[in-house]
């Protein structure tokens, strides 16, 4: 019984109980009604019995009494007593009990007095009375019996029905409900593939009943769930791929300071796993290098207002779990939810230790470089000064004896010329010429050296004007005629005026020297465009040179002619080349023996 009770479904039980109660109520009402009806019928029967008495027995008894036929009266009332439910009948005649039948009873009875009336000669005379007692006990007993019968039968019926109902309910409903419940819980634990099936006979073509609706409902729900779950999974995978595989350490700090998400890469940077930070967000601060704590002070406690700016970035050092020091570049920005509510900070930390080391290295390297450069510069300056001192003293020391050589040779010629013959004069002249030549050489060399050392200015120069001034100078100091010269107008260059003057002096002097011997010398200064750059030239139609020796042209002391043919020290072109090189340009020459030469040069723009 207990097991049965346990198996019964709570729902079924409730239904049954309420149904039984209701049915019992109805039954009670019905029973009451029925009993009442029965009672009324019985009462009616009794009434009809009384009627019968009144109708049939009364006259008889009345007559019999009039006739004082005691026997007849007794027979009548015996008969009367034998009527259903009549218990006692008594005939009285003027207070004297004349006859009786049955047993008197006073409880649960109905009694009637009938006056016995005899009609005698047209007048009704009451000769006595009949007293009848009907026993109600039987009625009541019958009612009680009926009541019990009904009650018991109803009870049994109810019990049976209840049991049947329970069972039916379980078979039709509870069983399936339980299946559904179990299915739903399996569903809940993620099993979306299983189809719900209830062990029921399939009903084709009829209107789907409630369970079938549930089934189709479940199917729909399952497919929708599967769908949503899939998209969710995809979405999660997408974001997880990005988030969990970040190279840098990323985390989300909620407004209350907790860390809902810490990327796994934090182990690589700090040695601590994400959980360590999530359990105690203060770890964020405690791993910071003590010297840098101030920089990030208040970081954990910053209010929303403070965090509510555009992203912040700053660098600081941390001590990893293993005790190593690393530089971290931190960047964070505020995050807002869908409704604009502040949701915290999204933070990104990058290990920039290498970068910092590289920066430091570069800095030291730079400093070293600068130191070395200034050392080297100092060295160069020293060397330059030495060179200058050297050349200064050299030129002085070389010139002095030269002066003596030349001076005393001259003195000889002037004071003792008479004592010398032609050969002697000739010898002395050679000595003088040689000395003078050496002086020129020294001057040229000094100039060449000075050009290398001198500081260069870079100003715009009118080359046309410069050339014209040089030509005028040459004319004034060397007596060169100006007519062979032609200078192109508007030649503009950028360079050092002093150096360029020296160069033009050399080139123009050369041009004149080497054209001096021909009848119609032409010397031209101009410019042309060649491969996108401006090339300046000095062209003459003089002696020219053999291109085979062009390589020697610009070497110091190199000459392609004899000194008596064309005077010169051979330093001029070397000087020109050095000047052009200092201007970042090139110089070259083309010539043809007997036809002339062109000296071309470029200057850095």
């Amino acid at each position, binding site marked *: 019984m207990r097991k049965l009770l346990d198996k019964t479904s709570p729902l079924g039980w409730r239904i049954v109980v309420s149904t039984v109660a209701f049915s019992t109520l109805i039954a009670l009402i019905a029973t009451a009604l029925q009993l009442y009806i029965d009672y009324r019928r019985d009462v009616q029967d009794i009434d009809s019995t009384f009627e019968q008495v009144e109708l049939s027995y009364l006259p008889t008894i009345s007559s019999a009494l009039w006739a004082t036929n005691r026997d007849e009266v007794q027979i009548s009332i015996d008969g009367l007593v034998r009527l259903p439910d009549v218990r006692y009948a008594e005939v009285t005649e003027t207070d004297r009990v004349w006859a009786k039948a049955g047993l008197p009873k006073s409880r649960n009875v109905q009694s009637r007095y009938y006056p016995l009336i005899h009609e005698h000669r047209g007048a009704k005379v009451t000769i006595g009375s009949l007293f009848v007692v009907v026993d109600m006990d039987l009625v009541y007993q019958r009612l009680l019996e009926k009541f019990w019968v009904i009650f018991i039968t109803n009870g049994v019926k109810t019990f049976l029905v209840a049991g049947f109902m329970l069972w039916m309910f379980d078979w039709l409903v509870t069983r399936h409900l339980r299946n559904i419940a179990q299915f739903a819980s399996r569903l809940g634990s993620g099993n979306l593939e299983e189809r719900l099936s209830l062990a029921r006979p399939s009903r084709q073509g009829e209107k789907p009943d409630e369970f079938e609706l549930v089934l189709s409902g479940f199917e729909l729900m399952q497919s929708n769930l599967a769908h949503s779950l899939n998209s969710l999974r995809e979405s999660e995978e997408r974001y997880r791929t990005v988030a969990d595989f970040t190279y840098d350490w990323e985390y989300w700090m909620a407004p209350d300071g907790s860390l809902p998400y810490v990327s796994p890469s934090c182990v690589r940077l700090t040695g601590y796993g994400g959980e360590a930070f999530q359990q105690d967000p203060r770890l964020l601060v405690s791993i910071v290098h003590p010297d840098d704590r101030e920089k990030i002070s208040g970081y954990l406690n910053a209010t929303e207002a403070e965090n509510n700016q555009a992203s912040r970035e700053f660098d600081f050092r941390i001590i990893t779990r293993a005790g190593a020091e690393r530089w971290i570049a931190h960047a964070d920005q505020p995050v807002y939810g869908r409704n604009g509510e502040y949701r915290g900070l999204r933070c990104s930390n990058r290990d920039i230790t290498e970068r910092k080391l590289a920066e430091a290295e570069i800095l030291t390297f730079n400093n070293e470089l600068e130191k070395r450069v200034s050392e080297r510069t100092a060295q160069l300056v020293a060397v330059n000064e030495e060179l200058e001192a050297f050349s200064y003293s050299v*030129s002085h020391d070389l010139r*002095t004896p030269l*002066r*003596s050589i030349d*001076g005393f040779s001259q003195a000889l010629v002037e004071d003792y010329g008479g004592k010398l013959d032609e050969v002697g004069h000739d010898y002395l002249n050679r000595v*003088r010429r040689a000395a003078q030549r050496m002086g020129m050489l020294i001057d040229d060399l000094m100039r060449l050296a000075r050009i290398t050392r001198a500081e260069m200015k870079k100003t715009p120069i009118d080359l046309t004007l410069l050339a014209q001034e040089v030509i005028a100078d040459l004319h004034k100091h060397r007596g060169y005629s100006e007519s062979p010269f032609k200078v192109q107008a508007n030649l503009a260059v950028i360079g050092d005026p002093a150096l360029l003057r020296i160069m033009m002096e050399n080139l123009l002097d050369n041009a004149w020297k080497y054209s001096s011997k021909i009848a119609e010398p032409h010397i031209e200064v101009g410019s042309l465009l060649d491969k996108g750059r401006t090339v300046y030239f000095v062209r003459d139609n003089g002696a020219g040179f053999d291109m085979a020796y062009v390589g020697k042209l610009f070497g110091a002391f190199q000459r392609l002619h004899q000194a008596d043919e064309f005077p010169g020290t051979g330093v001029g072109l070397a000087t020109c080349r050095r000047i052009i090189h200092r201007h970042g340009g090139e110089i070259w020459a083309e010539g043809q023996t007997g036809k002339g030469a062109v000296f071309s040069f470029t200057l850095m723009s």
Partner: protein
Amino acid sequence: MKDKVILLVEDNLDDETLTLRALSKGKILNKIIVARDGAEALDYLFGTGIYAGRDTTNQPQLILLDLKLPKIDGLEVLKRLRADARTALLPVTILTTSNEERDVVASYQLGVNSYVRKPVDSDSFMEAIRQLGLYWLVLNTLPSQGL
């Protein structure tokens, strides 16, 4: 002006001879005092050392000063004689082989009156001396006080 003196400060004997010869060829007949180094020159000017007791009111009319001198070099001599009231206004011509810009600048900064580069070629040298003499001793006017 014949009794006016020219002070030649020159350490090189050859140059000294050539200069003297040039002066005489150039018809400059003043008395010429030769100092072999800077110290001697200053001694002469200030009446010290080997020239102690000289009458320093009688100063040269022209000083021909070489730059490269032993003991005390030309620029130092120039500086000192310009610093002393007795000699501050004396005409000084630097006569030297150097034409280094910095020497020229230094000399002028110290108050030299002219700077002449000794040419190697003796004709030019003679001519230069002659012109020098002509200019400083004949053409140029000197203040009368202090001399």
